[in-house]
């Protein structure tokens, strides 16, 4: 029976593979940019002013996607909170004491990694990296923090506020784009500034910082939720 099932599944997957193979053979390596990409390469700089074209696309051209994506994380955090909410509403203390080693290490590492994270999202328009990466790094800091201070209660309050305010500001800037410039999330509400400097590329640094904060807060929130249930009793 088991073999029968496996072979049946293998046939299905085999067909799937064959389908994907058919797709694969249509691929031919590209030699030049298509019109859209070329536009970004040629006009992106002058229009947006960010050295990192990926950033300019993510934040400006496809800003709505980014907004959606931030929303997804926000949603995820909310759902996880909703799902893991215990019926009792109280949380007992986590089980384990953190080791001395971890605590010391964390105390040194946390500021450093936080700095890195912040750097990454502030410089998103200049160098590789940006809000997501920075946010993720902030979140990993948060993991460390949780590990080291595991016996303390950490409320969601701060994270929620960060999330809400950064999200609101993102939207606000987007709306300002309609009012002050050509459209929703248009970054030209400020002057583009000098190319290559930190305060250039219009709203990109601000938005990306907000995204970073928000992503960081959201991921941290998710992690916090998971962390908090570690000590929950069964019900």
């Amino acid at each position: 029976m088991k073999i029968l099932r496996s072979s049946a599944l293998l046939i299905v997957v085999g067909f799937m593979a064959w389908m994907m193979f058919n797709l694969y053979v249509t691929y031919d390596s590209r030699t030049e940019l298509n019109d859209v990409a070329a536009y970004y390469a040629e006009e992106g700089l002058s229009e947006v002013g960010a050295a990192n074209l990926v950033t300019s696309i993510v934040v400006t051209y496809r800003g709505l996607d980014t907004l959606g994506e931030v929303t997804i994380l926000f949603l995820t955090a909310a759902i996880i909170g909703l799902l893991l909410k215990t019926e009792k509403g109280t949380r007992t203390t986590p089980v384990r004491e953190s080791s001395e080693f971890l605590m010391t290490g964390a105390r040194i590492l946390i500021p450093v990694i936080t700095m890195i994270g912040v750097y990454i999202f502030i410089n998103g328009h200049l160098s590789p990296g940006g809000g997501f990466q920075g946010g993720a790094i902030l979140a990993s800091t948060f993991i460390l923090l949780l590990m080291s201070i595991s016996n303390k209660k950490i409320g969601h309050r701060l994270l929620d506020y960060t999330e809400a305010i950064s999200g609101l500001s993102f939207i606000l800037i987007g709306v300002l784009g309609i009012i002050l410039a050509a459209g929703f999330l248009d970054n030209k509400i400020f002057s583009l500034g000098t190319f290559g400097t930190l305060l250039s590329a219009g709203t990109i640094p601000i938005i990306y910082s907000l995204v970073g904060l928000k992503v960081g807060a959201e991921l941290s929130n998710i992690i916090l939720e998971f962390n908090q249930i570690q000590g929950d009793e069964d019900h």
Partner: protein
Amino acid sequence: MKLFEIEYISLIAGFILLIVGLWGIISQRNIIKMIISFSILDTSVHLLLVAVGYIRNRTAPIIDSSVNKLNAANEITDPLPQALVLTAIVIGVGITALLLTYALKLFRQNSSLEINQYKSLKW
């Protein structure tokens, strides 16, 4: 030999991972294994997306000193798929986290991680 170019290899790797991921989802009865398979599936799609955007012998789409600003269009790879992948990765992690939450919830309810134990809803 055309196949021995990195974009082809990445694509093949992506497709193989995709199939392996699908195989994992439908063959593994453990819910955590299914979720792991899903994250493999996710990774594979990201790999595919990036590979699709790649143009051989070009640099990353960051216009710094190594790129001629005026000739950028001929020197950088396609930035758009990369932007898409960024979004996709974050979405992927969101879904994975959700799946895990549901898995946890299920485990707490029935103390089982076998997907075929959860057949209360059917027909």
